[in-house]
């Protein structure tokens, strides 16, 4: 009897005040749920469409063509000698991932309120799931990227070893933003409206349509504190086989980690009132 009782896990429910630690072991226990929620997002996204996953190829392709015509041909933005089509492909694809992941992650708690009030599971799952599920679109759109790289005969060579670093950074940014904004959006639904416009402007905050060399050197550090700059510059340099411009990447890495950790802590702090406020 004694041993049997010890086999059962004991949960102690007590009031939560102030800052809470993040229970990583519990998150691990819920990994199956994580998996199914990610998989649900993927399955449902293109349900009842004709093109299905082709949208993940078509949408960025159209965008890249439009940017190439307007910024490359009409405005003739300098790209340090790289063909504009190649230049923007390498930036638009990671940017699209980051912007959709940010949007869905920020809306995840408000959108999941039906579940939130009905059943317990670690709330942290909500904003993290879109960060993973949007990776599928990203991976599919790599087809476009590969095609363009083959066309321009670009060989990244050994530089590819850096790719995982930038992929990780590319996921940390929307995760950090999503943690912050999803818990803020519970209280202030303004987040939804603000984010729409901010994202449209954010594309100009990073070297997606123009080259980072256009930024005066004395502002470079300030500019690079934006982690999106690091992702784009790092991604582009990696795939073009150029030297990694760490002066653009390092400050952003720092901001990204701060965003993620502070976001998770803020989320946990606000967690206890989610159900009451929503």
């Amino acid at each position: 009897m004694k041993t049997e009782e010890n086999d059962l896990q004991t949960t102690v429910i007590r009031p939560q005040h102030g800052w809470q630690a993040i229970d990583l072991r519990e998150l691990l226990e819920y990994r199956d749920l994580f998996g199914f929620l990610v998989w649900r997002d993927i399955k449902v996204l293109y349900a009842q469409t004709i093109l299905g996953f082709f949208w993940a190829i078509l949408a960025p392709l159209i965008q890249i063509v439009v940017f190439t015509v307007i910024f490359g041909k009409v405005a003739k933005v300098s790209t340090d000698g790289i063909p504009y089509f190649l230049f923007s492909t390498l930036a638009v694809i990671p940017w699209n991932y980051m912007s959709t992941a940010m949007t869905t992650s920020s809306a995840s708690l408000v959108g999941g309120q039906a579940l939130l009030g009905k059943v317990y599971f670690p709330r942290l799952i909500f904003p993290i799931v879109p960060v993973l599920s949007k990776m599928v679109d990203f991976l599919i759109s790599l087809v476009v990227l590969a095609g363009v790289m083959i066309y321009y005969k670009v060989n990244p060579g050994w530089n590819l070893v850096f790719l995982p670093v930038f992929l990780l950074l590319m996921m940390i940014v929307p995760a950090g933003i999503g943690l912050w904004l999803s818990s803020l959006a519970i209280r202030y639904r303004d987040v939804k409206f603000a984010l729409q416009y901010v994202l449209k402007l954010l594309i100009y905050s990073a070297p997606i349509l123009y080259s980072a060399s256009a930024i005066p050197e004395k502002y470079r550090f300030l500019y690079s504190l934006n982690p999106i700059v690091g992702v784009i510059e790092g991604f582009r340099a990696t795939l073009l086989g150029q030297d990694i411009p760490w002066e653009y990447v390092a400050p952003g890495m720092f901001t990204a980690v701060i965003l993620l950790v502070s976001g998770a802590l803020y989320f946990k702090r606000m967690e206890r009132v989610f159900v009451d406020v929503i």
Partner: protein
Amino acid sequence: MAKELFRFLRSPIENYRRYRSLYDFSDLESSPQNVLHALEDVSFDVHVGERIGIIGANGAGKSTLLKILSRITPPSRGTAVIRGRVSSLLEVGTGFHPELTGRENIYLNGTILGMRKAEIDRKFDEIAAFSAVEKFLDTPVKRYSSGMKVRLAFAVAAHLEPEILIVDEVLAVGDAAFQQKCLKKMEDVGAHGRTVLFVSHNMGAISQLCDRAIWLKSGRVEMEGPVDEVIRAYLNDGASGLAVWRPEGVEPENTEIRVLEASLRDPASGEPTSMVAYGKGLRLDIRYEVPRASPNVSVFYVLRDAMGDVIYVSRDTDNPTWKGRERAAGTYVSTTKLPGFLKPGRYLLSVGVAEGVGARWDRYEDVLSFDVTSAGCPVNPARRGLILPMLEWDVIAEKPGVDGGKVVPLAR
């Protein structure tokens, strides 16, 4: 005009203050008398394998208690220690996605409710068989009928096998046959040494399922003990507003007629009661005061079942004697007998007064409630339908039939 414009321009600041304070309880701590504690001093032990019913009027704190125990919302004070895995069934079908197939939703819903994938793999065939929608497992759930959805959802929930199962009014969904199936399954769960916490307004279900009950009243434990004793005490508790209601502190809003008291009584003894056997109707008395003579006064009540569906509405002016007849200033009692065709279960009564048809009226929602017990019910009380009338039937034989070689004579 300028003032309104100013207020409009200021509104973001006001909104900010308001929404920020959603999280902020510091102003309440300084004036504790304004704080409403949904639960206070609630302390109890539940042992392995016990089935506990939690009863109480609306707003007594039942749902809050379950939400704390199922970790949906943390308490502001106090501790609960739970040994074993908890699954809560606060609503069947939580997390169902219409675009996903039945098979996919079993996995999704199962993991949401706390199962591991390996566990669902193991029980999958059993769940599919229990749901009886096996043929449609690869069809998106959006093409299911609502009955199929509920069956599938309950099949998943029924195979949770946690050490502790928390159930809140899930019996309120589905038809009677389905409700019986739920109850049966929950009994099995209890029989396998699991602990069940069950909240319901359906006293019949509570007494069928549970051994012990806790009665919550205004956030405190009013009584705890053997299920039938607690239910009896709860139902006889006049102060909880079940058998007798007086509109204390409620002023009529639209009419001048003042309801003084509404009560449910045993038709024989005239004693207030809120429990009646099937087939026997309670008496409803509505006392009211008419301040000025009026030809248009009518008194009515709305009868609702536990699911909130209106069974019918009845007015004292349905009696032609009182239709359009003037009532002089004074106090009246309109009395009526409730019908005996009500199915066993819980019912809620809203009473109201009106002056003129649809002109001015006051209604007091769900102020009385009573239970019809299945005692004396000659047929299966779980038969489908909102009501259970015993109607007259005749069987007339038209031709002599042959029964085992013998001629059956014509009856009648």
